[in-house]
């Protein structure tokens, strides 16, 4: 949820602002005034920080279903999707291996150091559900990887299919390029599937989230990009339609277009660097398991830029 990240940051900034205002208003004969501001400001800052910290995700490789699970999946379409885009998506979902971690449920952050990941090509057979035996309960929620290894370690191999979105490694986006099929097979070491928000790719072991590059603000996840930029161009064409015949010179409209389009395209090199940075994490799965994050397999038809699916817990229900 790119929006939620801006909400969290906005909340903290607002708290800081109230603190600053309370400092301005400080007058010793009326302590209740600045006391109120300080109280509200600190509550908001602390609340915002806790909210941000609780957004840290377990870095689990999740790749959905075998056949019977697909049934459950399709029975619950996302209510927010509109007009037929689901149809597009369904036809394009590749078969995936499901990786199931019992430790993920009812636990604090699962610690995957005991799992040796093996990167598979997608031609492999789907593995059956794996159940690691994790005896440990970790009550502390937010420290990712900070907890020690559970005592009862069962080393097992987890089959992980790394999905390489076809859009992630392109510097240029061709908006009119159709996406007829899923990426057939990841070639070589695959970059992380991008999940456009503050899911901190290659990020720290500490609980504090590191801010992802500012691309998070705009709908820009690569799988969604072509749709998003089509959408953007549509709006633009409305605009251009109105103004094009009347004005004598093109540059002012061009100027609007240029300012929007380049700023949009500019994000792609940034995200690309991000992917590149996290690529290295993939190369050494054994050493850097905490860095591995495989989001939901973003099928190439993933459309809606601002509908976050899956991992971001919706604190507001």
């Amino acid at each position: 949820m790119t929006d939620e990240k801006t909400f969290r940051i906005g909340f903290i900034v607002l708290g800081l602002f109230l603190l600053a205002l309370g400092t301005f208003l400080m007058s010793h004969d009326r302590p209740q005034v600045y006391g109120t501001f300080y109280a509200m400001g600190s509550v908001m800052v602390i609340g915002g920080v806790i909210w941000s910290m609780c957004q840290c995700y377990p870095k689990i490789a999740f790749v959905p279903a075998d056949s019977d699970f697909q049934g459950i999946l399709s029975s619950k379409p996302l209510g927010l999707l509109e007009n037929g885009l689901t149809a597009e998506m369904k036809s394009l979902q590749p078969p995936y291996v499901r990786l199931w971690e019992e430790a993920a449920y009812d636990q604090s952050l699962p610690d995957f150091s005991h799992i040796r990941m093996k990167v598979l090509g997608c031609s492999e057979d789907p593995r059956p559900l794996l159940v690691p035996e994790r005896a440990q309960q970790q009550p502390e929620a937010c420290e990712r990887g900070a907890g020690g290894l559970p005592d009862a370690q069962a080393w097992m191999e987890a089959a992980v299919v790394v999905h390489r979105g076809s859009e992630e490694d392109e510097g240029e986006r061709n908006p009119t390029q159709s996406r007829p099929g899923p990426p057939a097979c990841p070639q070589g070491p695959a970059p992380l599937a991008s999940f456009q928000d503050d899911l901190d790719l290659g990020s720290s072991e500490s609980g504090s989230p590191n801010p992802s590059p500012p691309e998070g603000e705009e709908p820009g996840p690569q799988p969604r990009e072509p749709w998003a930029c089509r959408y953007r161009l549509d709006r633009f064409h409305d605009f251009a339609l109105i103004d094009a015949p009347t004005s004598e010179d093109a540059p002012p409209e061009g100027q609007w277009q240029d300012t929007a389009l380049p700023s949009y395209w500019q994000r792609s090199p940034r995200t690309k660097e991000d992917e590149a940075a996290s690529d290295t994490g993939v190369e050494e799965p054994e050493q850097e398991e905490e860095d591995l994050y495989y989001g939901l397999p973003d099928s190439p038809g993933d459309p809606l830029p601002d509908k976050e699916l899956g991992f971001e817990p919706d604190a507001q229900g």
Partner: protein
Amino acid sequence: MEELIGLREGSSGKPVTLQELWGPCPHLRRTIRGGLEWLKQKLFRVGEDWYFLMTLGVLMALISFAMSFAVGRVVRAHNWLYREIGDSHLLRYLSWMVYPVALVSFSSGFSQSITPFSGGSGIPELKTILSGVVLEDYLDIKNFGAKVVGLTCTLATGSTIFLGKVGPFVHLTVMIAAYLGRVRTKAIGETENKIKQNEMLVAAAAVGVATVFAAPFSGVLFSIEVMSSHFSVWDYWRGFFAATCGAFMFRLLAVFNSEQETITSLYKTNFRADVPFDLPEIFFFVAVGAICGILSCAYLFCQRTFLTFVKTNPLTSKLLATSKPLYSALAALVLASITYPPGVGRFMASRLSMKQHLDSLFDNNSWALMTRNSSPPWPKELDPQNLWFEWYHPQFTIFGTLAFFLVMKFWMLILATTIPMPAGYFMPIFIFGAAIGRLIGEALSLAFPEGIVAGGVVNPIMPGGYAVAGAAAFSGAVTHTISTALLAFELTGQIVHALPVLMAVLMANAIAQSCQPSFYDGTIIVKKLPYLPWIRCRKISSHRVIVEHFMNRAITTLAKDTPLEEVVKVVTSTDSAEYPLVESTESQILVGTMQRAHLVQALQVEPPSWAPGHQQCLQDILAGGCPMEPVTLQLSPETSLHQAHNLFELLNIQSLFVTSRGRAVGSVSWVELKKAISNVTNPPAPK
């Protein structure tokens, strides 16, 4: 993408979403989420909008107050420096000049580096956005910081650069409102709805103006007049609610800051309330209005011409393109040098800040009468009790000073409006109008020392009242609004001059509206933003113009049974953004529209193999999932121009198709409407 759900291994029950299963401490999260849901249900029974409107009002009041506070501190620091620097002319000139130059160039450079949208007043672009056009990224929250910092720096220069706060602050408010709208969508859990989003923006525009002046009534009315053509009563209530919350918070903060004892108006005046003016004075008030109207036409024309000149002149346009801070610094240098108090600034009362300008111009004494015999000294430092001493010069008297102020500020203000930094342009013209009114009032006071009605009770003329009328009239004429009259009363706290001021404003508007587009419309024209003009000419003949006369007949329709090659040919040869989809080539019954981008994408997809011999047509693409928007509104060729125009304005539409008995015969968009309106207003000469 579908939401993935799952089950814990070995557990039974309904599958739940994975985020619930895999988040840290799911019990706590569930509890928190449940608590929030309960809270949401209880709170939002009233309707969630009101909370967000209140938040918007309070937030903008806080921001406005913080900005005023910061500006006040910076100005105090500058005054202290100017005082303490000693008597060397060079040093004093430097301290007077470097400060605005540095602030202006920083403001310009900083805000432009973050976003190019941050320059100028935001109101023309907001007007365009509220009329339905989508300007990408204009309301992005990341422009917020740039604009706040830029605006604070602009305001900190004070009366040297002579710019105000309204425009960018309204932009800030609308940005926050767009942001809060997204928060609201998230909190309620509904999908984004463009209409509801627009409602929030309209209320935000009202709040912005109201917060700047801490004047809820006139703020809401001013924003309605400037930014909308149609305004629903529902938005009116929301705007008032938010504006009142904001105004209350703003004044409350002023009290907390010990600036004031209680909540009062910003520029308090002290006119005598029993007989503020005599009946014959109304004629002079109307004359003030007429003069303000004429001067406003001159101002608008010169400002637009100069703006175009700056954009087209090779030297300045190159300077603006390569280095905006340099241009801003040069302009600030010119302005600061002229307002240097020991120099030319002595004749322009340049030591006064913007607030002090208004306070002194609304003074309830008659300066002409007071200086007829005595000659007050020019104090070394500003005397807060007798601000009007600034306006007095022994040789030139107040008339010379006021006239010089008007002449110089006219072109200085026009120069300042071309600086590419966030700045509002309302307050300077308000002050300018107050000076015009004051000059006329002082002249009248000198001409009629005993008041106009001779015999009986002596009611001397109060030039302060004329200043209020002049301020309201000039600013109303420049912005084509009438609510500046109410604004003048809310700012001064006294409504004793209600009728004459209103008449002056009406007169000024009558002159200005028939000669020039308003300030914001002029900016829209210069920046070539899309806009739909009003139909100002309401002659009978204009009611006879129907859509058939001006619609665009050259539309290319795509029928469902068109072969694909022809579709490709049509799409590549024309460049419209959407194509009307008709049922079949003979019937031409309009069924929907297709967006160009979708069509292009669908055409490029490899089609599945069909039976050979079956010619593929558009129907197949549609069946393959290319989206088609159904047609929701159509015009008929017999619809009148006024009806079509009302429809476009009311519903914020950009284009509609014209159908006759179901057949698509043409299209009408803003282009055709503008041409039709201009033909109605200025009928072309008959051949």
